[in-house]
């Protein structure tokens, strides 16, 4: 079986209906859906790796797996230009304020992937220590969790596609918050 087949079948299609008409055609959609579609296909991850998961992340970014095929093209070295942070590795108590600051500096809408056991829960080895944050969701809100130690590039790719599906499925975190509290 061609490995690309399931990936391609999961590829997001343009959200809307196409109507054939003589001499061309037209399509209908909502602005919200078009924005989400565009947004999900152009996620710029922040350069952020704190341990061995970052090696798999780099592997996913490089030629063999190449996540730019799915729209994760431009890895940014500054949080001000990034809208996705892939927490790849252990977060220790000293790193937690730095991570929070990086997250706060990112423009909305922003997304977080917790990659690997350490980012999800503190990790298989370092859990019972004085220095490790037991899951990155104690510090920043997480959109997609991907287990593994470390997860293989295919798994990371799956989490990225899951995040795209999540973005296309509806509103951003900020929009939901505003809907519940219009005074914001």
């Amino acid at each position: 079986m061609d490995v690309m087949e399931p990936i391609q079948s999961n590829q997001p299609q343009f959200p809307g209906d196409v109507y054939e008409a003589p001499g061309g055609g037209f399509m209908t959609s909502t602005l919200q859906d078009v924005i989400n579609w565009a947004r999900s296909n152009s996620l710029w991850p922040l350069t952020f790796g704190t341990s061995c998961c970052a090696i798999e992340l780099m592997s996913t970014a490089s030629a063999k797996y190449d996540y730019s095929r799915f729209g994760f093209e431009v890895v940014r070295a500054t949080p001000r230009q990034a809208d996705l942070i892939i927490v790849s590795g252990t977060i220790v108590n000293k790193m937690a304020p730095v991570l929070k600051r990086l997250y706060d500096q990112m423009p909305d809408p922003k997304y977080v992937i917790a990659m690997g056991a350490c980012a999800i829960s503190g990790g298989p080895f370092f859990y019972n220590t004085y220095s490790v944050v037991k899951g990155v969701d104690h510090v920043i809100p997480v959109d997609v969790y991907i287990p593994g130690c470390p997860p293989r590039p295919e798994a990371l790719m799956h989490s990225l596609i899951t995040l795209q599906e999540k973005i296309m499925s509806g509103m951003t975190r900020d929009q939901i918050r505003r809907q519940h509290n219009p005074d914001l």
Partner: protein
Amino acid sequence: MTYEALKITITELAPSALFEEGGEWLNIFISPDAFPAFVQQLRSTEGLDFDSLFCLTCVDWKTHFTMVYHLSSTIHFHNMVVKVKLDRNKPEIETVSAIWRTAEFHEREVYDLFGVEFLHHPDLRRLLLTDDWVGYPLRKDYEDPINMIKL
């Protein structure tokens, strides 16, 4: 110098030293009192010339601490390990940072995590943890009820 020759030379330098057999390198136990003069001799004695300290650490054996110094010579290409037993209630040892500059940070790290006092150290502060940290996390009896599960 070979293992055997090294052993003979060191026995002459410090007759009270105890050797520990079975390791890859020459292991030697020395008392904290004899330690400062002994390591100075290791550094300066011709033929030994231990000019590189490549590992400095501490082990908590619950009954006592053991300081472990891994030494190497870049001239003669021989290695040895110096160990010093310390009293767990009052762990104190003379600094070696004047002999090997690299020890300055290593000793700060051991001070930080084990609470060993290095006498005459130029700048003995915590290295990795915050200055107001209470306790020494790598001691076996360290307790942190918020972050750690007691096994």
